[in-house]
């Protein structure tokens, strides 16, 4: 669509320079991430299909109000989801249910993950850019400094 548009601004986002295709890949990755998360929570009983609960049909407005109250009361140094939750929620095909089942993680896999994570953290402490604990993925926090300045410029 952009290939016939030769203005400088449009040239920057033509598919052949990769921006649009990369954005599409990234967008699809995040959508898949949300879907996988929902599927797992559904399978483990944290969420149930919304149409299966009468309660869910009554909830949307009150759920958002509750969320906002909790977020406002969250500790100022909340560092994970157990301490804070988003200010808003978006509708989905799932409702929530107070039960979760988890399974034990394989020891070997856990060791590998922890080693990779520690390596990434160590690299982060040393300011080494683009150190990544997970194959084929990128952690923006590990190279935030210089790139932040460049983005802000």
């Amino acid at each position, binding site marked *: 669509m952009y290939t016939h548009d030769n203005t400088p601004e449009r040239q920057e986002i033509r598919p052949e320079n990769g921006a649009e295709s990369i954005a599409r890949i*990234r967008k699809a990755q995040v959508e898949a991430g949300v879907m996988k998360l*929902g599927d*797992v929570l559904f399978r483990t009983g*944290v969420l149930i299909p919304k149409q299966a609960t009468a309660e869910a049909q009554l909830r949307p407005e009150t759920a958002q109000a509750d969320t906002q109250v909790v977020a406002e009361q969250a500790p100022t*140094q909340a560092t994970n*989801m157990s301490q804070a939750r988003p200010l808003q929620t978006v509708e989905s095909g799932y409702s929530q249910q107070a039960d979760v089942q*988890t399974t034990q993680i394989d020891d070997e896999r856990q060791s590998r993950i922890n080693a990779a*994570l520690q390596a990434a953290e160590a690299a982060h402490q040393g300011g080494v850019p683009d150190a990544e604990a997970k194959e084929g993925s990128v952690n923006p926090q590990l190279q935030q400094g210089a790139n932040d300045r460049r983005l802000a410029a």
Partner: protein
Amino acid sequence: MIKRLLRSVVGNNQEERDAELYRNFIRHEARIGGTLFGPVPKGGRREFFCLDERTWVWHEEWIDANGHYKTKTTRYDVRPNGILKAQDGQLYQHVGVEEARHLYDAAKLYNKKINTELYNFI
């Protein structure tokens, strides 16, 4: 926004430029994600982002009551049978019901906001 992200890409070849652009997209997503949970205290920084299809990351920096700089990174790993989290290199632990719900709410909102604010050109 997209123009600014593109201008920052300086790789030597197409592969490098693509990789850098990919990282830039995630960096900007992380900033958007950091706004989902309300205001960040002065001197602090918060980021929340999807690292890949199975990993979500929360990063928080703050100044404690003694004036010391603190940081904590929480990594949520989505496994077939549940959600695990690891903080600052410690062992993984299971995520409870409430925290899992918060994560899911955050992920949905994150997806919505990046599509509105970042990927609205596609």
